[in-house]
């Protein structure tokens, strides 16, 4: 871990409005995540973990406040600029894996690199290396529906880190996994964090995950506390 800030938020708030009723999800959050951190946003369902993760990932616009990824403020960016930033600097792992069903494990891993324009040979080598680290190289040619949940989530992790992002945001990555698969996944993520210096920020209420992160940021009713 270095002192370099990967994420900084300042008085970050997000409210949802439905039928004229405003519901705050995140309220005035100030947060700093440094490069190489292995941290988690914790809190019960509805505490605002996922919303905060989506705000940091530039998937949602805040109602007020600001997010910086490295030195870049997200506030003034257009949707296309935000997409470019996500593509270059942020990796995502979702609870439901969200692999592209018509692509093999290897192709899914290559996907973000393909969007980045990494040459085919280079992205293939990098994807195979990652699948190997994540111990699923033998399934490289399988489509997602032929993989177990744990294997799919490892492919999703490979996809997230393959493009060498500054930050990987993982929303409940172990929620759909049995304890053995969840433990295996966390071991591998930890290894990527140690060996490759990948910064991880999780959103989870899974104690198995929270026990293994270096830092737990508690959220209650959208407020860090």
């Amino acid at each position: 871990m270095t002192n370099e800030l990967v994420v900084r938020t300042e008085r970050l708030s997000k409210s949802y409005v439905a039928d004229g009723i405003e519901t705050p999800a995140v309220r005035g959050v100030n947060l700093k995540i440094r490069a190489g951190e292995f941290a988690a946003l914790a809190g019960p369902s509805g505490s605002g973990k996922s919303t905060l993760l989506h705000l940091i990932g530039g998937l949602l616009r805040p109602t007020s406040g600001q997010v910086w990824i490295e030195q870049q403020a997200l506030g003034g960016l257009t949707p296309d600029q935000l997409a470019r930033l996500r593509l270059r600097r942020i990796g995502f792992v979702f609870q439901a894996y969200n692999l592209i069903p018509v692509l093999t494990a290897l192709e899914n891993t290559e996907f973000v690199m393909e969007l980045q324009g990494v040459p085919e040979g280079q992205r293939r080598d990098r994807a195979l290396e990652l699948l190997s680290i994540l111990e699923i190289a033998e399934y490289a040619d399988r489509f997602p529906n032929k993989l177990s949940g744990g294997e799919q989530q490892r492919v999703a992790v490979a996809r997230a880190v393959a493009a060498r992002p500054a930050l990987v945001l993982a929303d409940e990555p172990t929620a759909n996994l049995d304890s053995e698969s969840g433990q295996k996944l966390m071991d591998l993520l930890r290894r990527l964090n140690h060996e490759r210096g990948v910064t991880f920020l999780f959103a989870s209420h899974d104690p198995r995950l929270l026990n293994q992160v270096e830092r737990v940021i508690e959220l209650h009713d959208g407020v860090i506390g």
Partner: protein
Amino acid sequence: MRFSLRLAWRNLSRNRRRSVLTLLAVLLPVLILDLMWGFSNAVQRNLFESTTQLETGHLQVHRADYRQLQTGLPLIQNVTPVLQIIAQDPAIERFAVRLDLPALAAHGDRSRGVLLRGVRPGKAGQLSALDKWVRTGRPLKAGDRKVALAGSNLLKALHLKVGQSVILLSASLRTGTGVLIPKVVGSLAPPSPQLSRSIIELPLADARSLVHNPQAASSVVVLLKDISGPWDQSRIEREARSLQAKLGPDYLVETWAELAPATVGLFKIIQPLYLAFSLIFFLLGGLVVLNTLYLSVLERTRELGVVLALGSSRRRVLGWIEVEAVLLAGLGALLGSALGLALVGWGSLGFRLPGFYAEFVSIGLNNIFYLSISPAEAALSAGLMFVLALTAAAYPGWRAARLEPVEAMHFAG
């Protein structure tokens, strides 16, 4: 690009039945339009050939004032100088002299007004299809005199049989009266019932004897070289002007289009009619493509949300949908074109429509159609469907590109 193609191909393979149906929706309009072109060209060629070979030729030479004459026969009194000029024209393939006369035909106590057509036996078949309509008996032969062929309906009307003689009476203020009693050696069954009720074909020398002029002709019918259909009209008109200049002001050279305006009118109706009919299939094809891609986008909303969340540009997402449309439309247009050209190719050998026989024959068409399509027409039908399918893909593509990642990922669809 290879990645996009692979992705698009696999996405299309997800719901094969729907993709195949969409492919058919693209393929069929192209196939139908190709067949429409083929059939429209065949009908036009058929009408053109029936008209030019049976009746008008490509060009006809008459006396300059033949349309103004109110009385008497519009005869070219001495056709020899005309024939000399025509014989030297390199653009002309064949020509024939005709002497058409109104006359009265009588047998027993029955009589009918008829059209006598005097032709040179042997040459008649080259320019007039009458010979091929001989149903019973035999065609006229070189050296024949005082024989005739008569339309089968006329034979019935006169209670006349092949082998019997018919009295022909011609009368005109200029030529006086003439009488001939030829023996009917054959019956004609031309496609036009009207012609069948009125035509009598006889040797040119006999017809000339009726007008008491051995050099007389009513027209010289000309067939030009290398004319395949009405699409060669500009060449026909050019040759008409050239021949008119050579013959001078005493003669009038007319094209088949001037002599058969009803046929030209039919041409003006046929193609737009076919095109309008095909357009319906094209629009339906476009709608099916739109529907397929729209459903496909709807089904993949979550997936597209993930792709957008991962950092794909909206243009890229639009591009993927368009690539799918290109694959569907390209493959459909290609297959439709291949199938259409193959069927037109098969139909170019000769195509008979039994069910329509009576209708076509009654308007003077040959019942055998020869389908044909030009490269430009084939390219237009495939290209039109391709462009239409791409246009139809624009809306689903736009919808996909406009998705909000988080909302799309939570789409319950």
